[in-house]
């Protein structure tokens, strides 16, 4: 197999045995993702996109098929090995931010480092977490607790946490689902900027507007890929924000 692929899925199936009926959530998905790609996985609810996401995120194992992440066959690993993969290779961003309450932004970002199998000295943990927060534009708010931050800022902290272990893959599950439209654009801007620095990003979404910020769109229906194509008319967050600001200035909403 080619080692320069970040992700290679081969005939992935996932079947849930709930009671007497077997639910085939994913039925034969094959997918290859190269370093530096920015992929949106789309589909309506029940299309199997969340199940696929869980397997790509090494939270779950496929019933059959193979999944290579960075050349490692993840589909055969045990619980502990999966935990290590999640820690080192994958950064998660969730719809509901999933930050620890009453814990500062910096400590939230440091958390994955605590579980790194290499012992990282605490001053280095600090440096790396601070650097991560600077990457997402929150260098000044390191000691704020989640309840002192806006939704957009919380999601930035979550992205900082996802990046802190320098993963090969950033995985975002409806990252703008809980945000207003302007903040959504800002967050997509953060992703685009990270992608420009050659970070591979996979994002699950059901909003077409949001998917337009990516480079490649994969659409799922009934557990199968039905389209997989490059994004036409790609949106750029910077441009969109500028237009939005002009529109707001026109009605005196913004200075």
């Amino acid at each position, binding site marked *: 197999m080619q080692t320069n692929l970040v992700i290679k899925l081969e005939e992935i199936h996932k079947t849930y045995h709930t009671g007497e009926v077997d639910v085939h959530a994913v039925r034969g998905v094959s997918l290859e993702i190269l370093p530096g790609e920015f992929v949106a996985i789309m589909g309506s609810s029940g299309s199997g996109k969340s199940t696929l996401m*869980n397997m790509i*995120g090494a*939270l*779950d194992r496929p019933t059959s098929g193979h999944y290579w992440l960075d050349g490692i066959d993840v589909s055969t690993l045990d*619980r*502990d090995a999966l*935990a*290590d993969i*999640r*820690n*080192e290779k994958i950064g*998660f961003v*969730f719809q509901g931010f*999933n*930050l*620890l309450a*009453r*814990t500062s932004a910096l*400590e939230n970002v440091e*958390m*994955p480092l*605590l*579980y*790194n199998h290499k*012992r990282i000295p605490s001053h280095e943990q600090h440096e790396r977490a601070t650097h991560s927060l600077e990457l997402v534009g929150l260098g000044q708010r390191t000691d704020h607790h989640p309840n002192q931050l806006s939704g957009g800022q919380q999601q930035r902290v979550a992205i900082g*946490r996802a990046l802190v*272990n320098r993963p090969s893959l950033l995985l975002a599950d409806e990252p703008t689902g809980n945000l207003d439209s302007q903040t959504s654009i800002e967050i997509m801007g953060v992703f685009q900027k990270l992608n420009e620095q050659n970070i591979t990003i996979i994002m699950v979404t059901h909003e077409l507007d949001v998917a337009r910020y990516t480079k490649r769109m994969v659409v799922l229906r009934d557990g199968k890929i039905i389209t997989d194509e490059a994004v036409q008319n790609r949106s750029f967050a910077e441009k969109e924000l500028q237009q939005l600001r002009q529109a707001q200035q026109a009605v005196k909403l913004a200075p």
Partner: protein
Amino acid sequence: MRIFASLKIAGRALRRNKMRSLLTMLGIIIGVGAVIGSVSLTSGATKQVEDQVSSLGESVITVFSGNFTSGAMRGGWGSAPTLTVEDAKAIAGLENVVAVSPEVRDREQVLAEGLNWNTQVMGESPDYPQIRNWTIARGEMFSDQDVRSLAKSAVIGQTVVDQLFPNENPVGQTIRIRNLPFLIVGVLAPKGFNLFGQDQDDTVVVPYTSHMHRITTRTFVNDILVQAANDKVIDSVQDDITDLLLARHRSKEQDFTVRNQLELMQAVTATSRAMSFLLAGVAAVSLVVGGIGIMNIMLVSVTERTREIGIRMAVGARAADILVQFLIEAVTLSAIGGSIGILGGMTFSWLVAYIKNMPTVTPFGWIAIAFISSAIIGVISGFYPAWKASKLDPIDALRYE
């Protein structure tokens, strides 16, 4: 395992819920505190009794003469004339016997310069202060020469000094017993009350020969005090004395009784040991109750923090990391609870000791036991909740509302 990281996480979690952490610990705090407090006080009391027992002298064997029986009336130990000065001299020749004093006792009216006092007059040998572990505060003990010459010399206790010579040095003065002048050669250091509440300082000690021939006219002694070389040989010396006296008295029945200090000590410590067992029982019950409290709160905490567990697992925490995190939380709770309990119990016993003027002893053994067992309780009661947390499925945990 990343123990240090887990410690940090546990510390944060407990600090976040200060009030709850405190209430959770309360069971352990009260249990350990009560045990440490009461152990301090009872072992203080026991220590006091032990001190009194050992103030009777170390490795001391007492030989009492038999009971005097007249018709249906039985006189009790020391009432029958069976022990003689010769018996005492024979005992002195036994192996491992370091000091012997034949003892005769009598109550007499003692006079000195217009004052008088009724007190216990004892006839003893010069070994008496050594056997009773008693020092001479002023002057000196009478000598063997005094015993041989039936000297009219006396050593008096502090109470007699206070009663008869309130404002002067009694050494060199004279007291009169049955109209005989006795020269005071020494004063015994104050010893206080004995186990039975008697004032040990209320006494006049004279050579036993003087007592038997000048004050009273006796041929027998009440008892014989014997000091063995050490506590290890005390039993064999006791047996030797029994054999020797049986042979000397040529009697079929044993007409004397031999007792030693260790037996008395054992009787006293048996009580305190029973008390200790009782306390250990109370401690065990309270620790179990405290442990159930901790388990309860840890279960609540695991349910409450299901989402947090999911997040931690998503970013790479292994099942073992989660297990250790919650275990450490439980152990931290119980160990801190135990420490607070130990401090509280010690403070309580010091306060009581201070207010009530009672002795207290810091029971280091019990403190170690209390601390270790509260930590163990933490492990036991924390294990099930922690195991439950570590077995959560990360996907389910993340979705938990």
